[in-house]
């Protein structure tokens, strides 16, 4: 028989305001096996924990029930406190009477009754709890970073700095990501390439960092400390080890009508190409969709001109396997497709562009060599209208948009407006905004500078319709403060389109068994206290894949993420979750049902000798669980027809005891 102590937390008035904590303590004190029951203002506080520890000592408790907030919040706290008094941490159960009771019920009688029932269920479970010992598993001292934008690069550099190996897997031919496409960065207006490319070079030259560009993660197996990852290295048709990046092939290639994705399709590149001058690795890639040699077998010019003999038309995709201790998702973002918003004319008017297209139109390495010219006729625009919140802050009824604020648009729009006014003072710039959101260091000052120093016209209101009006664009908008409807003849309209997670993020999350929110952003383990970890052990989050962020924030988060990864890699052994499945060999009939449902391959079979009747021996095939691999989902326990498989910490008997207590 257990000797159970029950501790009811007031959580200030969070619980005590709705639940009669004294009545709960009194009622649970009468439960069988309960030898001590009390309530306290803040159980999680130092003094609350001391109170629990004292009770464990004085009453020789063998099990503890805490009625408090969600176990997701403080289960670890109370387990640790109990273990300091020599109780196995898995002898502690939490009854969640805050999130599941006091915060949602208003009637005190009703809430108190429910709290007592939840307390009884926890007590019933503790009666059946067994002390559990966590096993250990070794750690592969190498990290994988998926995505080679500024987030992935920074995370990789910081991990390498600590002395650990890192691989970056990037799906495009070069690392650099979206930041490489930007012209200047707010709020300091330094050029993106000037601050990014040195980091790209660092990553490329660091002997601890291995870059797999033009590669994709194909499968992930294993668990924290021991991931086994298959990486598909897509055929570049160029031998990376031989190519010197001289670029001769890219000049001589006769197929020059390929939309250049680096310049948002606003000019063309060749079928063999290096995305941009500072690419890392600086290696040419053949675009198989356009290469005449690959399509028809007729051409071969690049091979002829290549002095290094790097061209290999027969190259095939290659799948390699690598082992890692931790994995970082840094999959980044894309702007949404503005075509859906044709009330702004994006699909039909060439002079309506997105902000990322404008970055390229203003960049010295862009299609216009840095002179701002409008796409339709290469004329200099004299009136530019910016539309903010295109596709951001929509309700779910608007399938075209996103419910969240994309966070970066207010600032980059202020930047664009300011840069245009600085370079071309003869240009009128209008910004239509709903709110101007500038929470960040020196951000509001920056926005005010755009208005006060550069004379950008900020108008509170939204654009309703953009139509082609001869050579110009007719912008119909509201000025809410003046109560007017404006009709502006503009030469260029720039849409601050919402950003969304990269389309590959969901399939990667599935491979990593990491959770995502409804917008396909990765979910963090705790929104405030564990912002760079996924709830899945060993998976970490860097950059916009977790939520919209600007560059300073992305870099901070990337470094924080690296620190967490280093924390894993620095350990020689990791403690495993002891709540794993175990098979009762006496009951197992070797049917393989459990093995088939196990997503981790944690179950194996072996022939074992058993004592049969009349001193005979029987050889039987029985299942056994590898506790280091098992993640404790319990799928096998239900699949097992003979009831041999059970889950420690969530055993059939324990859950049934809870059911009984609740249905009493």
């Amino acid at each position, binding site marked *: 028989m257990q000797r159970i102590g029950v501790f009811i937390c007031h959580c200030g008035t969070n619980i005590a305001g709705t639940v009669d904590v004294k009545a709960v303590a009194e009622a649970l004190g009468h439960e069988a096996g309960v030898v001590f029951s009390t309530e306290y203002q803040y159980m999680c506080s130092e003094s609350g924990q001391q109170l629990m520890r004292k009770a464990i000592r004085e009453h020789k408790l063998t099990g503890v029930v805490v009625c408090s907030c969600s176990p997701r919040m403080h289960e670890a706290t109370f387990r640790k406190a109990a273990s300091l008094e020599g109780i196995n941490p898995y002898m502690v159960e939490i009854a969640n009477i805050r999130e599941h009771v006091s915060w949602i019920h208003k009637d005190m009688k009703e809430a108190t009754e429910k709290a007592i029932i939840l307390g009884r269920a926890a007590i019933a479970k503790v009666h059946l709890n067994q002390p559990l010992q966590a096993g250990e598993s070794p750690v592969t001292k190498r990290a994988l970073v998926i995505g080679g934008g500024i987030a992935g690069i920074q995370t990789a550099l910081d991990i390498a700095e600590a002395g650990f190996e890192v691989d970056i897997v990037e799906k495009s031919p070069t690392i650099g990501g979206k930041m490489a496409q930007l012209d200047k960065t707010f709020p300091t207006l330094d050029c993106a390439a000037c601050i990014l490319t040195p980091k790209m070079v660092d990553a490329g030259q660091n002997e601890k960092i291995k870059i797999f560009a033009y590669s994709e993660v194909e499968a992930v197996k294993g668990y924290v400390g021991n991931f086994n990852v298959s990486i598909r290295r897509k055929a570049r048709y160029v031998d990376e080890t031989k190519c010197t990046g001289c670029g001769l092939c890219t000049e001589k290639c006769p197929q020059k009508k390929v939309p250049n994705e680096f310049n948002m399709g606003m000019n063309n590149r060749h079928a063999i190409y290096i995305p941009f001058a500072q690419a890392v690795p600086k290696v040419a890639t053949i675009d198989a969709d356009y290469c005449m040699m690959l399509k028809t077998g007729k051409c071969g010019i690049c091979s002829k001109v290549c002095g290094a003999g790097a061209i290999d038309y027969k190259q095939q995709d290659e799948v390699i396997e690598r082992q890692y201790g931790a994995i970082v998702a840094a999959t980044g973002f894309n702007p949404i497709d503005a075509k859906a918003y044709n*009330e702004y004319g994006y699909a039909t008017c060439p002079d309506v562009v997105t902000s990322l297209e404008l970055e390229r139109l203003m960049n010295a390495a862009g299609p216009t060599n840095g002179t701002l010219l409008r796409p339709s006729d290469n004329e200099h625009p004299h009136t530019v209208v910016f539309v903010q*919140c295109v596709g951001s*802050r*929509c*309700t*779910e*009824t*608007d399938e075209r*948009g996103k419910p969240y604020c994309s966070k970066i648009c207010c600032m980059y729009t202020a930047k664009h407006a300011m840069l245009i006014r600085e370079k071309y003072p003869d240009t009128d710039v209008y910004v239509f905004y*709903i709110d101007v959101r500038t929470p960040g260091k020196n951000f509001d000052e920056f926005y005010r500078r755009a208005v006060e120093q550069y004379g950008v016209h900020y108008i*509170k*209101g*939204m*654009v*309703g*319709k953009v139509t082609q009006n001869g050579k110009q664009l007719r912008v*119909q*908008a*509201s000025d*809410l403060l003046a*109560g007017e*409807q404006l009709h502006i003849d503009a030469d260029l309209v720039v849409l601050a389109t919402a950003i969304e997670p990269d389309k590959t993020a969901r399939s990667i999350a599935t491979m990593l068994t990491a959770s995502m929110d409804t917008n396909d952003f990765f979910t963090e383990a705790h929104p405030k206290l564990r912002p760079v970890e996924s709830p899945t052990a060993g998976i970490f989050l860097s950059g916009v894949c977790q939520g919209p962020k600007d560059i300073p924030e992305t870099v901070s988060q990337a470094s924080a993420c690296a620190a967490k990864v280093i924390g894993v890699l620095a350990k020689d052994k990791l403690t495993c979750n002891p709540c794993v499945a175990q098979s009762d060999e006496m009951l197992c009939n070797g049917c393989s049902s459990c093995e088939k449902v196990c997503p981790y391959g944690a179950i194996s079979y072996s022939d074992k000798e058993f004592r049969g009747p009349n001193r005979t021996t029987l050889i039987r095939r029985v299942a056994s669980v590898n506790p280091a691999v098992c993640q404790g989902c319990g799928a096998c326990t239900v699949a097992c027809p003979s009831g041999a498989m059970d889950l420690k910490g969530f055993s059939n008997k324990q859950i049934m005891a809870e059911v009984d207590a609740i249905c009493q």
Partner: protein
Amino acid sequence: MSHSNNATEQVLRSSGVDVRKCMRCGKCTATCPAFDEMEYHPHQFVYMVEKGEIEKLAASPSIYKCLSCFACVDRCPRGVEPAKVVEAVRLAVIRQQGQNHMKSDDIPALLDEDMPQQLLVSAMRKYSK
């Protein structure tokens, strides 16, 4: 005030619109083809209904200016459907005895030989009960 509250509730119920979803971006007003004719504009209809100021709206000729083009309904990023609010306020007015905005006697003067039936039918539907 209680009268005003009842009127607000009636408009909310009849329109089926959740005015609280509005984020005050003004896109409805930006896109409205009847802007110049209106005293109160689509976003003001939404905002004033939220504030319970139905009387001002009901007394304004703006309620007869909406073209039922659904542009504000389609383009609202918050799914607010301002046109339904305008229609609900107009209905609240013309459903009262003697409040028809268009009367059968008015019609002969409006006719011309090309005028399609549907114009008169829709006008009667929109402006009288």
